[in-house]
């Protein structure tokens, strides 16, 4: 099964669940920024949860399918047209050989995932099919899709093209509140912030800057300051880390963040809210709310249970 890239879209990359285990070599995990959306798109195609799919950013690609395929799109709302006809997101969609699939401009949010049944079949690099554009690592030598690329996927095992009459309710998986509220765990240097800055961090609204990407989101808001300059040497970093460089404007790390860095850490975005961070684009507003580690872990476990239930339910419907 082959798919030809007619138009690549703004920034479309192959992503799976990421590349753990190489942080000691200076290699981060990368992987889908909105991990639950990738899992749901995969579930809708009957794929394993970590199969390789396309991560689409703001403006979608146009793809020509040379063979029959099942596809599904989950994440930020984006028009999906199959040979010109609008088709639903959050549902399995059958695509006939020779069909053009066109994804438009996102109505809100920043990232959507297009999965194909069988997953995109690219050679894993260090155990993962994730693209790390910043590290130039992964499929396609770590670059986004280009016009003319030909992607392979496993051929559809069952020929059934009977359209499904259901779609998922996207609301639990794509909250489109106008101002995102992200739970923030205390960072190593939170206590070193001025008292006024500690209050401002949780009382004020921050806005995502244009020069944001999968490495990190630059935020603008009230200038945050330390009581005294914080001196530190380079230490391990993970996605979700909220660093405060000397500018006083925080940076929230994404999946392609460096594995180490030397800016003070004022917080850590709760893992359960990384999917919300993934959906923020330039000019979007967000706020932070304080959160304890126990509560963040509990929320993560609850979401995992809900996701697993959903995946099981989808699998049952697909085989019904």
């Amino acid at each position, binding site marked *: 099964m082959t798919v030809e890239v007619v138009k690549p879209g703004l920034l479309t990359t192959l992503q799976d669940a990421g590349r*753990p*285990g*190489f*942080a*000691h*070599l*200076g*290699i981060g995990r990368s992987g889908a920024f909105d991990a639950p959306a990738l899992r749901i798109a995969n579930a809708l195609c009957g794929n394993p949860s970590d199969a390789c799919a396309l991560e689409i950013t703001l403006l979608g690609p146009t793809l020509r399918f040379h063979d029959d395929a099942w596809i599904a799109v989950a994440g930020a709302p984006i028009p999906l047209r199959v040979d010109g006809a609008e088709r639903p997101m959050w549902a399995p969609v059958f695509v006939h050989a020779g069909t053009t699939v066109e994804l438009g401009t996102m109505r809100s949010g920043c990232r959507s995932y297009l999965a194909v049944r069988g997953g995109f079949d690219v050679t894993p*690099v*260090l155990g993962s099919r994730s693209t790390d554009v910043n*590290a*130039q*690592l992964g499929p396609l030598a770590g670059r986004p899709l280009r016009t003319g690329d030909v992607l392979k996927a496993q051929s559809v095992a069952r020929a059934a093209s009977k359209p499904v009459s259901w779609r998922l309710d996207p609301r639990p998986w794509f909250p489109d509140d106008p101002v995102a509220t992200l739970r923030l*765990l*205390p960072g*190593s240097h*939170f*206590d070193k912030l001025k008292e006024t800055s500690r209050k401002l961090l949780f009382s004020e609204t921050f806005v995502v800057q244009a020069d944001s990407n999968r490495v990190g989101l630059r935020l603008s808001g009230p200038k945050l300051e330390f009581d005294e300059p914080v001196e*530190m*040497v*380079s*230490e*391990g970093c*993970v996605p*979700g*880390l909220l660093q405060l460089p000397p500018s006083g404007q925080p940076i929230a790390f994404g999946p392609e963040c*460096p*594995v*180490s860095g030397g800016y003070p*850490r004022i917080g*850590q975005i*709760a*893992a359960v809210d990384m999917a919300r961070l993934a959906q923020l684009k330039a000019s979007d507003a967000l706020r932070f709310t304080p959160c*304890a*580690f*126990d509560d*963040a*872990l509990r929320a*993560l*476990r609850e979401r*995992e249970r809900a996701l697993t239930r959903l995946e099981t339910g989808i699998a049952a419907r697909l085989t019904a």
Partner: protein
Amino acid sequence: MPTAPGGAPAMADFRVEPLAEDALLLRFGDGIDTATNARVHAAARALRDADLPGIADIAPAYATLLLRFDPLAWTEDAGVRLEQALSPERLLVRGRGLGEGANIMQKTDAGDSRTASPLTLPSPPSSTMGEREIVVVPVCYGGEYGPDIDAVAEHAGLSRDDVIARHTAAEYTVAMLGFAPGFPYLLGLDASLHVPRRATPRTRVAAGSVAIGGAQTGIYPRELPGGWHLIGRTPRVLFDSAREPPCLLAPGDRVRFRAIEADEFARRAERDA
């Protein structure tokens, strides 16, 4: 630096700091020095050897060790095994085991969830140190490969040959890899060669460039932007994702540089290509 990288690290406390739901930092100190860094690598080895289930990443930095695990798979048993791996004898965390991930992060005393417990890590046996052979990295110094070598020489008040002699005489330790896949931060640079970073970073530094930035020396694994002073270039390939292992150098490795001439650089570059 008074402590040789091959020496046995002293017994020392370290602290467990929660970083994220799926990440911990073990903190051995706050600065850049070989003794602290050796303790980081000893702990990394102990944890790697223990092969703990659920721990995905064990990544050393100068004074800290990053552990990443699956927060949903993390169990009481995993915490106990982490504890055991860090001590062949007995390791107490204020009378309680490390326990579940949440427990590490939510210390009950002092009401401060960020205050980590001091742990005691006994000295690892010195036989675990320096197991790996020294990696010798050939470098063609100066000329087009090391355009900043004269600036370094001038800053140090040395001749170009002295810079090369001192850079090749030292034994280095790979303190950590970072910045880009396979970029080694090397400790052990002769104090006379410490040079502040360039005022204006270069937008393109060639792959294999050997450089000095402050008290450190490093090697650019691919073409990258960079603000360090370029003193030479190695024909060795630092990083290749298709190779096993992908990186020429691993954290904790000992490294020496060997000066080569341009013709040897060309021969080796062809072979590695």
